[in-house]
Each structure stands twice: as C-alpha cells, then as structure tokens.
C-alpha cells in the first residue's frame, strides 16, 4: 500500500452532512483492512474536528493521507481562529451558541477527545484568519 490521499469539502451550514467525511474515511480504511483500533481513533477524532469546523468556523477542508504506518489528517478552515488554545483544549471549555447546544453540542469535550484519540495533535491558529489541525494516528 502506497500513500492514499483523500480530500473533502466540509460544508459550513449543514449539520445533517457533518460527519460525512469521517464516515467515508472509516469506510475506506475498513476496505483497506486497516487495524480496527486505528480506524476507530481516526473516525472519532476526525468526526469531532469536522463538527468543530461546521459549528465554529463555517466549514473547511479535510485532507487525509493514509499509508501502512499511519493516518495523517489535516483540517483547515478560514473561520475566526482560536484566541486561547490552552483554554480551548480544557475539558468543558466551550463557546458553542445556544442553537447548537440544543442539538447536544457544547460540552467542551471535542478537542480533548481529539487529543485522547490521536497520537499527535498540533493546532495552528490565527485570530481572524482560521485554524489548521494536524492529527496523526499510528497504525
């Protein structure tokens, strides 16, 4: 297996479609016979990241590189950026608006979950410009 690269647009306004990219990655990894525990970690971390782009950043793009050793996920958006990454990483910290809280979002657990389910997580963010998340899961 050489490197397989997958690219997705994550729509900004549509909760009913949020999660499509991570579902597709999960399906493709299963077809490749990837290690199930790694698939689970990738799917959970990417789902949380995708939802964050929809809720907090008006959508974005996802790129996933799959090779036999690891899965690398890059999520890029041009939303408001994260002013205090340290705070955002804390369990329970959330700026989610009321309308999405009614749907069950806003526990402030998404980023902590991404940290927990990945082997590497790096956040590049600039207020007013956007956010890029780099996540790696080892096979």
């Amino acid at each position, binding site marked *: 297996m050489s490197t397989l690269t997958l690219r997705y647009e994550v729509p900004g306004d549509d*909760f*009913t479609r*949020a*999660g499509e990219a991570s*579902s597709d990655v999960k399906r493709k990894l299963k077809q490749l016979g990837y290690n199930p525990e790694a698939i*689970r970690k990738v*799917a*959970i971390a990417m*789902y*949380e990241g995708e*939802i964050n782009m929809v809720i907090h950043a008006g959508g974005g793009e996802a790129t996933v590189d799959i090779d036999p050793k690891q899965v690398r996920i890059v999520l890029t958006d041009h939303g408001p950026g994260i002013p205090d990454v340290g705070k955002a990483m804390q369990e329970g910290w959330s700026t989610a608006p009321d309308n999405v809280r009614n*749907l*069950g*979002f*806003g*526990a*402030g*657990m*998404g980023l*902590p*979950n991404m940290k*927990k389910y990945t082997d590497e997580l790096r956040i590049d963010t600039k207020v007013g410009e956007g956010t890029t998340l780099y996540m790696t899961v080892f096979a």
Partner: protein
Amino acid sequence: MTIRELADGLRAEILVEGDLTREAETGYVGDLLSWVMARLPEGAAWMTVMGNLNAVAVCSLKDGACIILTENAALDEDARRRAGMEDIPVLRVEDGAYRTALRVAALLGETA
C-alpha cells in the same frame, strides 16, 4: 441480555430494529454528545433525549449497542434512516432517564 429482550422488558417502542440480537453489556446516560463520545462504554444501551443524526453517529463511532430515547423524545427522520443503515436499534420509552436506568439495571442484573 439481547436488545430485543431489553426492549420487551422495558415494554419499549422499537423505532428502528437494527441488530436486536446484540447483547447489552451495561447502560449509559447522557445528552452532551462529545461527553458521550468520551465515555460511552462499548456495547452499552445509551439512554438519551437526543434523537438526531449526530447522536446516531456517536453511537456508531463508540460501538454502543442501542439508543433508548427517554421521555418519548423525538427521533429525526434522517437519524432514523441512518440508524437503520448502521444497524443500530433505537427504542423509545415514556419514563425519564433516571427511572429507565433503574429498570435497565434491574433487567441486566446490575447494582450500584
């Protein structure tokens, strides 16, 4: 105990059949999706009022055994379809989460 037996014991409405032969290992209660994403045990019967697509996604990603909608909470149409596709049973009961959890625990023979 299988999900079908659990549904019978709870006299629950079965909104989506899914895999009713799966075993329920334990129960879990929660409505905040990322919280549940962090904590839902594999094979748990998940009691919640969240009947949306994202709840189905969480149950699928965490490999929960079924969703039990408490207090007659609504199941969205797209969530119903997705649960069917993912083979996740969705049950519904009148009782609130507390009473439902007591009943699930009794049926599964679990104590605090």
